[in-house]
């Protein structure tokens, strides 16, 4: 598997719905196609929301991990 270079990190820890997705959409809009961002969130809704947002917008959810209360996602722009 190729190594994914993360061009930006979004710290949405402590933010409630829908801010993690709003910040993700803002950031992904500003990066070139093929580039990836990392999102850190504590909103439990973000697990389903990030997956749904990626499905709806065609961006790729490359990674999803959890470190206790913090969820980490890597999203690559289509």
């Amino acid at each position, binding site marked *: 598997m190729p190594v994914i270079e993360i061009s930006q990190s979004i710290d949405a820890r*402590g*933010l*409630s*719905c*829908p*801010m993690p*997705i*709003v910040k*993700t*959409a*803002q950031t992904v*809009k500003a990066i070139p196609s093929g580039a990836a961002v990392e999102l850190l969130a504590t909103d439990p809704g973000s697990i389903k929301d990030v997956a749904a*947002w990626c499905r*709806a*917008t065609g961006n790729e959810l490359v990674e999803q991990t959890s470190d206790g209360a913090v969820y980490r996602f890597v999203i690559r722009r289509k």
Partner: protein
Amino acid sequence: MEQPLNLVLFSGTDDKLQAAAVLTAGAAALGKPVNIFLQYWALESFRADRIAEDHGLAPEAGAAGRIAVDDLAAAGQASWAETLRQAKELGEVDIQACSLSMDLLKLEQTDLDPLVDGVEGVTAFYLNADEGRIVFI
């Protein structure tokens, strides 16, 4: 073109406006256009001189609801006005004041916060709503 989400906001309490702002920001993040039509007490809450004030909560909130809402705000939750601002930056969100409610409240567009894009009647709202669903809050 994707059908818009159409919100008719009637209530002016902070909890209902927060719920509307969350729906709006979610739709904007998905690239869905949103039309918001402000009537009655919702419009009153968009007055430039009152938008940042406390607009109270729906009666069912009660004292415990008040505490819960205050706790979330203290934890850094963005206000409904800020959430709407971000939604407008992100996507296609059009906020219109109902002309009848403008008359009722004796308002001019210059009395309203810049979040409000204009004043229209219900016919224009329906035309823009097209086949998209209409939600009344």
